[in-house]
Structures are given as structure tokens and as C-alpha cells.
């Protein structure tokens, strides 16, 4: 697949944000992206025209019931069949922040045995509680399975902003060790919170901004084609989006978020 043949659908509903930044990030890299309201996508029945589906950040449907829950169940009810075909064909799904919450609530992540009928994990209320908006360091943990991080060497530390109240990744208490082992076995763990030297947060706030289990920032499905993360790569795409750009003498032209977009584009151009 040539770069110009890739088509990206950035989904939108009431309460999504950074959809415009996500669209622009793709377009900066020469990939056609469009923002589509979920009702429009249902009406057109056009999901399978896209190679990438993005659930952006925000507070869809006011975060009512649980963050991401309503959007997840709506998608399954209205687009369940098409979504399953999309996943079976190994097309790419990216969930950023609220989008990650949607993927977990929809049973797409961690997806140990494919799409699960009920959530196998949760993004629970932050600990310490409250909305947390800050730049964090994250360390790349994946051994090559994840289609969204192919251009990032294992162990590389990236910097991106988080902005959420419900980002504490957890498994059911009685199964958390077993599920963590599965994540490692299947190469599904993608990023963990760390400090700027790469030391893991070990749950310490604010290095781990939400109390996430095992400092988990981000995971992918066993095929590596569905990827969710709490930080916002589209808010760390350009140098001028970074918090210290006025204090640095020389900033690189791009932020670390660009690597995520570049990796998934490279994956698609090589694989299809």
C-alpha cells in the first residue's frame, strides 16, 4: 500500500477532543485523514473503506457510566459486524486517552482471545484522585509485535502529555499476575511510566500519574494491530507543542508523538 492510498477515519462524537490535531498529524505525513461523526459512519456504512480507525481523546458522552463505556457499547451495537471484519482483516485501530478507555470497554483490548464479550481490564479512577494534566516519560517495552511502535527502539524513553481522570489501568484483582504474564508472553505490553532516566515509576506519583498497575501506560492486542495509550501523541507532534520550547535553544523539529504516526504508516506501507 502506498502512503497516499492509506485512509484514516478519526471518529468523533459529543465530547471528543484533539480529533483535529490527530487529523493534522496524519496529514503532515502525507496521509489522507478525515474526521467522521459516528452517526455518519453508521449511515454511510463505510468503515471498511478505511485502513486505520482512530478513537481520539476527550470525554465522550460526558464520561457517564464509566469513561468510554457508552461510546464502546454504541459502536458494538451499531457497527459490531463491520468492526469485527475490520479487526479480522488486521486493519489498524488506535485509541488515544478516552479512545483507549473505549477499546478496553469494548473488549478489543487486551483481547487475549480475540474480542471479548465483556471488558477484561479497566481504566479506573486515578490514584491519587482527580484530573491530572502533565507531561510524563514513558519507556518503550515492546519487542516488535506492536504495529504502532516499529520505529521506536526497545527501551527508548519518550515524552508526551497525559490529561485524564480515569487512567489507572487494572486487571481483576484475582487475575492480575496471570494477566500480566500473558501481556509479556504475547508481547502486548507497549509502554510503562518511568522518570527521565528511564527508572520505572514503581507506582510513585507523579512519575506514574494515575496509579496504573505495573506502571502500564499502553498495551496492544496479541496481533499488535489494536493499540491504546493514555498519553496524547498528537499533542506532542510538533516542537512548538512541547512545554519547554521557549526555554530551549535548539528544539528538534518534531516531538516524540510523531514516532507513533510514522510507525503505523510504515507498517501499512510495508505490510499491505
Amino acid at each position, binding site marked *: 500500500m502506498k502512503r497516499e492510498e492509506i485512509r484514516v477515519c478519526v471518529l468523533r462524537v459529543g465530547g471528543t477532543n484533539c480529533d483535529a490535531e490527530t487529523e493534522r498529524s496524519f496529514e503532515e505525513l502525507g496521509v489522507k485523514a478525515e474526521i467522521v461523526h459516528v452517526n455518519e459512519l453508521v449511515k454511510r456504512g463505510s468503515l471498511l473503506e478505511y485502513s486505520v480507525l482512530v478513537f481520539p481523546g476527550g470525554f465522550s458522552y460526558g464520561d457517564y457510566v*464509566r469513561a468510554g463505556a457508552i461510546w464502546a457499547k454504541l459502536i458494538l451495537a451499531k457497527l459490531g459486524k463491520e468492526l469485527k471484519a475490520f479487526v479480522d482483516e488486521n486493519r489498524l485501530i488506535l485509541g488515544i486517552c478516552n479512545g483507549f478507555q473505549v477499546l478496553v470497554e469494548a473488549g478489543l483490548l487486551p483481547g487475549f482471545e480475540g474480542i471479548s464479550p465483556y471488558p477484561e481490564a479497566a481504566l479506573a479512577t486515578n490514584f491519587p484522585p482527580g484530573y491530572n494534566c502533565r507531561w510524563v516519560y514513558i519507556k518503550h517495552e515492546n519487542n516488535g509485535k506492536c504495529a504502532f511502535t516499529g520505529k521506536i527502539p526497545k527501551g527508548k524513553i519518550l515524552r508526551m502529555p497525559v490529561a485524564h481522570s480515569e487512567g489507572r489501568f*487494572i486487571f481483576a484483582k484475582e487475575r492480575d499476575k496471570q494477566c500480566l504474564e500473558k501481556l509479556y508472553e504475547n508481547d502486548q505490553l507497549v509502554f510503562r511510566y518511568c522518570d527521565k532516566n528511564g527508572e520505572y515509576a514503581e507506582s510513585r506519583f507523579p512519575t506514574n500519574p494515575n496509579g496504573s498497575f505495573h506502571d502500564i501506560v499502553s498495551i496492544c492486542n496479541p496481533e499488535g494491530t489494536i493499540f491504546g495509550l493514555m498519553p496524547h501523541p498528537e499533542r506532542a507532534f510538533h516542537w512548538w507543542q512541547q512545554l519547554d520550547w521557549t526555554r530551549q535553544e535548539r528544539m528538534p523539529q518534531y516531538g516524540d508523538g510523531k514516532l507513533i504516526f510514522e510507525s503505523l504508516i510504515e507498517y501499512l506501507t510495508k505490510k499491505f
Partner: protein
Amino acid sequence: MKYQLKIEVSLKPGHSDPEGETTAHLLKELGYKVEKVNVSKIYSVVLDAESEKEAETKAEEMCRRLLANPTKDNYAIVIEEEK
């Protein structure tokens, strides 16, 4: 028939409850001898169903499909015929 469902969704024991802990902290600051606070959510639902049995089945389904995440939530359902 119309049934009134009260569905309470609460955290499973062992899961931390940051909202409850923060609330407990403030209640202590206000001078109350509070030991613990747990926060839960109650959904009051009016449902059309043929029988109480059907109302119960539907309520269970609602919890599994949307209202509770089995990773961390318990739920309890109380059903009454609506007067």
C-alpha cells in the same frame, strides 16, 4: 407491566476507591469520626416487562452489557412493581 429497578454498582472488595478515600478524609477534617467511605452508583430504571422474572433477566443483562465492568464492579438489583 412496569417495574422499578434499583441497580447499585459498587467497587469489588480489594479495589481502591480514591473517591471514597478523599470523601472520608474531608469528613474527618469536618470533625466526624469516619472510618471508611465507599462510593457506589444507583441507577433507578423504569422497565416494561412481562413478568418480574423477565425484569430480573433484563436487569442482569444491562449490568453485564453496560452498567458494570466485571473487572472491578459488583452489582445488586432490587425489583419492585411500579405503583
